[in-house]
């Protein structure tokens, strides 16, 4: 099967989208950019390939095992969970080996065996937890290995080290040295092996779904056997220049966001993208061609990073900001969207006795006000209006945007796709398809 790849190397996350010959999205992948765009590209692409395999499995199971019908989603999610567990354990094993290699030198003198034993116990426990973590309904802190493994490692290692009378800081030391190495190591390419192992688990539960295990196995194996040929790749985003892509494989993120939004919503005429470090207002024509654009200049005030910083200041998770702001009864007026000043402004308002949710509502409004200024400089909002980027996931930001759009431009259809974070990558993949077809 011919595929066309789009990679969006953002400042915070790297996204990949895989299109088939009919310009249908068959896979999407995301990873943290980790200051190493080379690895981030590989990981995002691999994630998109995994997603693509699942799409192919869906297509094959849909065609060959019609009796799965409305249970197909559930069945596939088990296959994916099994795969994710395999992938997680593989990376755990890598982390364990890497940690063990760090146990040497003066600091560990005489303690090598003891630290080794603690590590073995910690990783055994972690591996043991993997099954429950990746069972249907299992809870994981994040989708990124570093986040899941990191927090559990630190907790388990602390207890295990204390029981074994081994200094905890030694365990911290080996972890810190190893995690970056593991994270930056190119991922294992053995996708099929992991899928097949996951398949064995799924096949066991096939009868529960009322389907024939052999038919399921055949369908999944046929999907895994499809050759995914990468015909053309286009990269975009801030990291694009650091990659060994030749010029014809690079498109600016302005064009990619414009085209991506057009592909998602063909009637789009104005696009707002709020990403990690920039805010873009883009005007596109009915074909998705960019007519005009404006970006924040010289300063990333009011971009996604601003919210990240606020979350850190408030000791909250980024995804918790929106829901808390939604509880506000009033919006505190915040004038500065400067990321550096945000902390001071925040503390000042708290000291004045303002409620956290009201301050947060004000902060969200401030971001959107700044975005509105950028859009107006690009030519204003035309119907339909598509909002993309990480901040589009934030309900409080969306609420403020709705209000301000209505106030300034009247009734406009606002589109927000749940997968809007992939807009740039989708545009890039569409460019890749057009470069060949």
């Amino acid at each position, binding site marked *: 099967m011919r595929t066309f790849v789009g990679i969006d190397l953002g400042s915070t996350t790297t996204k990949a989208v895989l299109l088939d010959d009919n310009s249908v999205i068959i896979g999407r992948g995301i990873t943290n950019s980790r200051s190493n765009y080379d690895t981030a590209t590989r990981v995002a692409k691999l994630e998109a390939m995994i997603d693509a395999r699942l799409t192919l499995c869906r297509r094959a199971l849909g065609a060959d095992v019609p009796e799965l019908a409305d249970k197909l989603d559930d069945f596939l999610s088990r296959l994916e969970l099994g795969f994710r567990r395999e992938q997680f354990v593989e990376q755990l094993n890598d982390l364990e080996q890497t940690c063990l290699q760090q146990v040497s030198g003066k600091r560990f003198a005489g303690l090598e065996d003891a630290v080794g034993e603690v590590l073995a116990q910690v990783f055994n426990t972690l591996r043991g937890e993997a099954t429950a973590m990746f069972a249907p309904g299992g809870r994981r802190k994040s989708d990124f290995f570093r986040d899941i493994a990191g927090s559990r490692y630190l907790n388990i290692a602390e207890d295990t080290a204390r029981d074994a009378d081994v200094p905890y800081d030694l365990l911290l030391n080996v972890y810190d040295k190893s995690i970056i190495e593991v994270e930056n190591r190119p991922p294992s390419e053995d996708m099929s092996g992991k899928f097949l192992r996951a398949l064995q688990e799924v096949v066991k539960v096939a009868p529960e779904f009322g389907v024939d295990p052999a038919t399921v196995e055949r369908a999944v194996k046929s999907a895994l056997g499809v050759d995914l040929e990468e015909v053309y790749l286009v990269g975009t985003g801030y990291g694009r220049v650091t990659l060994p892509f030749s010029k014809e494989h690079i498109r*600016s*993120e*302005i*064009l990619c966001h414009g085209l991506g939004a057009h592909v998602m919503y063909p009637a789009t005429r104005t696009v707002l993208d709020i990403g990690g470090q920039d805010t873009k207002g883009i005007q596109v024509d009915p*074909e998705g*061609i960019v007519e*005009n654009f404006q970006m924040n*200049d*010289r300063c990333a005030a009011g971009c996604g990073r601003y919210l990240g910083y606020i979350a850190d200041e408030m000791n909250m998770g980024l995804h918790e900001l929106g829901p808390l702001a939604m509880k506000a009864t009033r919006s505190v007026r915040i004038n500065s969207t400067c990321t550096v000043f945000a902390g001071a402004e925040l503390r000042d308002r708290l000291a004045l006795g303002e409620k956290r949710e009201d301050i947060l509502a004000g902060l969200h409004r401030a971001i959107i006000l700044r975005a509105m200024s950028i859009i107006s400089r690009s030519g204003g909002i035309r119907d339909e209006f598509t909002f993309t980027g990480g901040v589009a996931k934030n309900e409080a930001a969306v609420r403020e945007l709705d209000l301000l759009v209505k106030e300034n431009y009247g009734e406009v259809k606002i589109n927000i796709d749940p997968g809007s974070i992939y807009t740039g990558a989708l545009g890039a993949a569409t460019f890749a398809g057009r470069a060949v077809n």
Partner: protein
Amino acid sequence: MTVITTSRSTSEQQEVSKDDSMLKQKAMMAKHFDRLTSARENGEKVCSTFVPGNLNELIMCFDFANNLPEVNAIQNGLRKKSGSYVMEAEKLGHSEDVCTYVKSDVGMMAKGNLAPNGKPFPDPDLLLLSYTGCFTFMKWFELLREQYKCETIMLHTPYEGDGKITDNMREYMVKQLKEDVIPTLERVSGVKFDIDRLRENLRRSAKAEDDLVYVLQTGRNRPSPIDAYFGGIYYIGPIFGAYRGTDDAIDYYKTLREEVDGRLAAGQGPVTPDGVMETEKYRLVVEGPPNYTSFRDFWKMFYEEGAVVVASSYTKVGGVYDFGFRHDPDNPLETLADYCLGVYTNRSLPQRVDMLVNYVNEYEADGLLINSIKSCNSFSAGQLLIMREVEKRTGKPAAFVESDLVDPRYFSAANIKNRLESYFQMVDQKRDGSAKGAAA
């Protein structure tokens, strides 16, 4: 002939291509600064004035050496000295938003007032403020007057708000020249005004102006043999500065014209610091001054992508010649008035739009790019409106980047490059239209 020389700047030790005219221009600049810094020992008096509305032909009649503060600021920008001067001026109490030409000048004065040749500039004997639309110039000369306690003349040029020069405006200016400007110049210099001398200077100006216009209009060719913005900065040096009305300027523009003709005949593109540009991919019209502190990096972002500036408004700030105006020796004072009235900075927004639309059409450009200057309140105002209007009237895409004149802190290379690349790709898309760029 194009020769390769090594840049003097210690931070840029790479080989740089330069035309004969550029070398000649460099020598002229050196001579200009040597004249200024030796003025005292040579018994010459010094007059400071600005580039837009620069009355060099008249100043020359009184044997003044002409010192142009913007030119000094630009030199300090190109030589990477303006950053510390700007900060010095801020230390002295000038805010972050003040014009950075002013701050570079104020900082330079505070740090020894050294010319590019390393010798101190003499204090001016006279400040000739020919006001042509930039209100900051007035404030700047107020500061200089305070500093030097010397005589000041203000020649007020009425703004071309209605888009045309009226007899009344011209008479008003001639009156000022006769009653105030010339008598003061005579008094301070001790030289009697000789109108025939002025006529001779004006005749020489017109000759050089013909060649300048010829050169700038070669941008209409494909490929354009010149870059009318980055290269254009060099081309306007002599005529916007202390050389207009001299034989040196006539020689320079003759050399330049021959050189450009040679490239034209050979079907060659402009000379960039990295050599002759091989492929012309994009033809642009640019509005706004360049950034001088990262001048070469900024230029590189264009020529690396195959972008040539075929016409620019900045090369008209010291005089708009391409719509027919020439200094006229038969009407010496009236022509000085017309010159001041017509400079780009004295033109209204609709006139600026008309000029830019004309350039996009006449020079068959792919679009308009605006480099908006953060610290220039006079001319950044209205640029978005200009951009939209030009877009609407030409149907060509436009883009907006922002930087500063000589404050290195306001040049964010990654952001500007990102916008330029996006713009170039947007032009590609537009050009390809629905055929390739967007037809699914």
